[in-house]
C-alpha cells in the first residue's frame, strides 16, 4: 500500500493520543479507587450500586433506631427496676405495720414513711427521658402523666406506645404507657377479690384465696354470709348476680378452706352474726390507689378487736394488691427485657448486613488495584513504544540524502 507522509504522522499521533487516553483513564481509576468512573462503564453494576447503596443507608437508619430503642428501653427498664424496689420496700413497711406489738402511733409513723414512698413512686412514674418528654405518658409526652389525688393519682396520659423501625419489617415498641404500668392492675389475687362488708362486727379476716378450677369461674359476684346461733357459726354462699343460694348452713371452722365456683379462700377469726364477705371478679385499681388505701388502713385506730380485724384485713388486702402491682412491673420489665435482647440481636444482624452491603458495593464499584496497577505499567510501556517508534519512523526522509 502507498503510504502518504501525512498518514504516517496522523496515525502515529492518533495512537499516541489513544495510549495517553487509556493511561489517563487507568490513572483516574487508581486515583479514585473506583472501577466505574461513569455508569457507562458498567450500567448494570451502576444501577445495582444505586439500589444497594439505598439498602445500606436504610440499614444504617435501622442501626441508629436500634441504638435509640436500646436507650429508651434501657431507661424504662431502669425506672421499672426502681419501681420494683420501691414496691418491695413499701411491702416490707406494710408487713411491719401488720405486726401485733405495734401501737397506733408506731403504725402512724410507718404510714408517714409509706406516704414518703408514695411521693417517690409518683416521682418515678413521672420520669422524663433524655429529651425531656415524660416516659410513661404515652403519646402525650409533654403532659405530666400522674398527679396525686386524695385517693391515689390521676392519669393524664394516653395508651400510646411509641414504636421504632428497627428492621425491614420489624417495628419495636420502645415505651410503655403509664396506664399499663401503674394502672389497671387487678386487685386481690388477680382473678377475684374478697372484701369484708363495712358493717362487720366480728373478727373474721378473709385470705386472698386462689382459683382452684378455672373452668368453673363464672364472673358473678358472691357473698359469704355468717350466721351465729349460740356457739355455732355457719355460713351461706349466695350468688348475688343471679340471687341464688349455692349452699347454706355450712359449718364454719376458722382457717378452713371455703370453696365455691372454682374459687377457694379461708376466713380466720370469729365472725359475728350477719357479718358478710363479698367475693367478686377483681376490679382494676392503680398502684397509687392501693398505696393510698394502705395508708388509710394504717392510720386508723385499732382499739377494738373488730378494728384489729379490719386492720389485719386491710393489711392483707394491701399486701395482695401490692404483690399484683409488683407482678405487673415484673411482667412489663420482662417484655421490655425481651425487646432489649431483640434490639441487641438485631444489632448483630444489622452489623452483619452492613458488612454484606459494604462488600457488595465494593464488588460493584471498587477497583482491583493489582490489575489496574499492572494495566498502568503495561499502558506506560505501550505509550513509550509508540512515542519511540513514531520518532524513528518520522525521522526517515529521502531529503536527508539529496
Amino acid at each position, binding site marked *: 500500500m*502507498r503510504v502518504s507522509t501525512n498518514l504516517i504522522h496522523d496515525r502515529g499521533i492518533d495512537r499516541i493520543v489513544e495510549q495517553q487516553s487509556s493511561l489517563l483513564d487507568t490513572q483516574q481509576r487508581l486515583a479514585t479507587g473506583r472501577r466505574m468512573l*461513569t455508569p457507562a462503564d458498567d450500567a448494570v453494576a451502576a444501577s445495582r450500586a444505586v*439500589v444497594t447503596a439505598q439498602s445500606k443507608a436504610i440499614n444504617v437508619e435501622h442501626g441508629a433506631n436500634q441504638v435509640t430503642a436500646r436507650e429508651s428501653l434501657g431507661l424504662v427498664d431502669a425506672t421499672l427496676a426502681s419501681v420494683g424496689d420501691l414496691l418491695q420496700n413499701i411491702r416490707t413497711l406494710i408487713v411491719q405495720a401488720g405486726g401485733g406489738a405495734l401501737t397506733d402511733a408506731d403504725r402512724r409513723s410507718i404510714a408517714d414513711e409509706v406516704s414518703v414512698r408514695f411521693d417517690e413512686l409518683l416521682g418515678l412514674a413521672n420520669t422524663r427521658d433524655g429529651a425531656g418528654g415524660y416516659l410513661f405518658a404515652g403519646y402525650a*409526652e409533654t403532659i405530666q402523666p400522674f398527679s396525686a389525688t386524695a385517693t391515689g393519682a390521676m392519669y393524664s396520659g394516653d395508651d400510646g406506645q*411509641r414504636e421504632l423501625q428497627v428492621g425491614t419489617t420489624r417495628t419495636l415498641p420502645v415505651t410503655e404507657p403509664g396506664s399499663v404500668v401503674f394502672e389497671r392492675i387487678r386487685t386481690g389475687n388477680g382473678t377475684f377479690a374478697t372484701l369484708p362488708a363495712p358493717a362487720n362486727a366480728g373478727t373474721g379476716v378473709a385470705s386472698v384465696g386462689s382459683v382452684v378450677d378455672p373452668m368453673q369461674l363464672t364472673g358473678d359476684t358472691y357473698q359469704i354470709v355468717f350466721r351465729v346461733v349460740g356457739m355455732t357459726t355457719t355460713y351461706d354462699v349466695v350468688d348475688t348476680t343471679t340471687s341464688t343460694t349455692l349452699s347454706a348452713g355450712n359449718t364454719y371452722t376458722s382457717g378452713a378452706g371455703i370453696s365455691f365456683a372454682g374459687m377457694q379462700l379461708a376466713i380466720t377469726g370469729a365472725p359475728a352474726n350477719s357479718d358478710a364477705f363479698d367475693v367478686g371478679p377483681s376490679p382494676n385499681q392503680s398502684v397509687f390507689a392501693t398505696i393510698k388505701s394502705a395508708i388509710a388502713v394504717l392510720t386508723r385506730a385499732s382499739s377494738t378487736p373488730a378494728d384489729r380485724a379490719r386492720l389485719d384485713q386491710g393489711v392483707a388486702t394491701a399486701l395482695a394488691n401490692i404483690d399484683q402491682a409488683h407482678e405487673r412491673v415484673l411482667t412489663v420489665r420482662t417484655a421490655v427485657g425481651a425487646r432489649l435482647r431483640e434490639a441487641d440481636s438485631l444489632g448483630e444482624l444489622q452489623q452483619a448486613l452492613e458488612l454484606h452491603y459494604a462488600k457488595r458495593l465494593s464488588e460493584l464499584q471498587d477497583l482491583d488495584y493489582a490489575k489496574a496497577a499492572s494495566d498502568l505499567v503495561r499502558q506506560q510501556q505501550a505509550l513509550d513504544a509508540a512515542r519511540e517508534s513514531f520518532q524513528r519512523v518520522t525521522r*526517515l*526522509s529521502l531529503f536527508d540524502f539529496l
Partner: protein
Amino acid sequence: MSDPIIGTGLAGLNAAQLGLATAGHNISNVNTPGYSRQETIQGTQVPQFAGSGFIGRGTNVVTVQRSYSSFLEIQAREGTAQAAHSDTYLSMVKGIDDLLADPSAGLSPAVDEFFHGVNEVAAHPGDIAARQSLLAAGNALAARFQLLDSQLAGARADVNGRLSSGVEQVNSIASQIASLNERIVLARGTGGQGHEPNDLLDQRDALVRDLNKLVRATVVPQDDGSYNVFLGSGQAMVVRDRANTLVAVRDRDNPQDLQVGLAAGASTVPFRATDLAGGEIGGLLAFRTETLDGVQNAIGRIALGLGDAFNNQHRLGQDLQGAPGHEFFALAPPQVLPSAANTGGATLSASIASTAALTTSDYRVRFDGANYAVTRLADGSTQTFAALPQTVDGVMISVAGTPAAGDRYLVQPTRAGARDLAVVITETGRIAAAAPIRTSGAATNRGAARISAGSVNAPPPPNPNLTQTATITFTGAGTFDVAGTGTGNPTGVAYVSGAPITYNGWTVTIDGVPSAGDQFALRANAAGTGDNRNALLLAGVQTANVLAGGSTSVQGAYAQLVSEVGNRTRAVQVTGAAQAKLLDETLADREAVSGVNLDEEAANLLRYQQAYQAAAKVMAIASTLFETILDIGR
C-alpha cells in the same frame, strides 16, 4: 536537420519543468487539508513521417491529473457524517451519564439524607431540632432535583445553541460550494479548455466533507462539473451556483426547542428530526429526542412520585399543633403547550390523576374537528376520544372552549416535575409525625382483649368524622356495639379476634378474648406530641413501590434511569468507536490514493531534474551539430 532535435529537446525540457513544478506543488501542499496529489500525464508528440519512417518529435504534457477516487470520497463523506453524529451524541450524553451516578452530585445521597431526616423525626417526634433537620433535608432534596433538572435544561440550551451555530456554518459552507461550482464550471468551460481545475475540485470536496461533519449531505455531480447538494430526504441545499438557506427556528408545537428548517421565501419548511440523521446537527437532534426528553421526564416523574406519595401520607397525619397534615411538597402540574399554528380559542389543561400511572413520555393532543387524538410520543400509540376530559396514563386532559380542526397541543406531564419541586412547609411544628387518632381500653375492662394503635385509611383526604370519638362496647365475647358520630351506631357486630374494624376512615384491630361490658374507645389524638406513627409510615415511602403502576420505588426508578443512560452512553461509545475506526480506514485508503508522500516527491524531483538535464544535453548536442555544419562552410 537540427530543427527537430532542438524541438524534441525543448519538449523534454518543458515536460521535465512541468514535472518539477507539479512535484513542488505536491510538496508544498503536503499539509493542505483535502489536497489530492497531482501528477503530470506525458504523451509523445505526433511523429513526423520521413522517407525512412515516423520520426519521434518528443513529448508533451497531456494534462495534470489529481489522484482521486470518487468511491473513496463518497465513503469518506458518509463516514464523516456518522462519526460526527456519534461524537456529538457522545459528548452530550456523557454529561448526563457523569451527573447521574456521581457519588456526591447524584440523586441517591439526597434521597437517603431526606429519609434519614424522616427517621430522626420518627425517633424523636417532639424534638424541634430533628424536625428542623428534616425540613433542611427536604429543601436539600428539592434543590438536588432542581440541580439535576437545571443541568438537563442546560444541555437543552446547549443543543439549541449548537443547532443555531451549526446552521450558520452549514449556510456558509453551502454558499462556498455554490461559488466554487460557478468557478469550476467557468474554469472547465473557457480558460481550461476541458482540463480539470484540480485544486478547486479538491477545495470543493473538502467543503462537502466539512458539510457532512454538520449534517449528512448527498452529492449529485452534474455534467458541467458542478455539484448539487441535498439534505435530509432530498431537500436541495445547493443547486449549481445557488445555495438555499437553512434556519433554526422555534418549534411551532414546542417553543422550548429549536428546529431546523429550509427557508422557502418568507416561510420555513421544517425537517423531521429523523430526516436529519448524521453530522453534528443530526447527533444533537437524536440526543434531544432519544435521551434528553426521556431523562428530564424520568427525573421529573421521580420527583412527582416521591412528592406525591410523601404528601399523601403526610396528609393522613397530624402536626405538632394537633391540626391535620397538609402537603409537604409543592408538585408541578403537567405543562400544556398550544401550537403556535392553532386557530381555535380553546384552552387545554391537564392534571395528574394518578402518579403511579405516569409514564416518561410526552403527549400530543390533536383535534380533527370531531375527535381528540391523544398520541403518546414515546411509542406513537394513539387513543381517540369524542369528548374531553379523559384520563390517559394517569393524566387527566380537559378542555375549555372549542378548538378549531387541526389544533394541536403538547402535554408534558412530568417535564417540570424536578424543576418545580419545593418544600411548602416552613414551620417545624407543621410536620405531621403523629396520627390524628388514638385508641384506649376502658380502665374497668376485665377481658384480655387489647386494641391496636389504629391507622388512618388511605388515600387522603381523611374522613371528616375521623377524629369523632367512637366507642366499641362488647355485648358478649362474640359481638360488639359501635357508637359515635358518623359510625351509624351499629349493634351486634360479630367480633373476630385480629380482624380489622373500620369506621369513619380509621381501622383498628382488637386481639384476644373480651368480657361482656368491656369498652374500647377511639378519639382525637390530643396532645400526641410523642406519637411517631405517621413518621414511621412516612419513612416507609422510601421503599414503597409508588411508580410505574406500583412496580418500582423511587430509588428503583432512579436506578433504572442510571442503567438506561449508562447503557445508552455505552452503546453510543461502542458505535462511535466502530464508526471512527471505519472512518479511519476510509481516510487511510483515501490517503493511499491521494496523499502526498514526500519521499516519492523527492524521487520525482530527482527524476525530473535528470530528465531536464538530459533534455538540455540533447539541445546542447543539437547546437553542436549545427556548429559542425557551419564549420564546413568556413
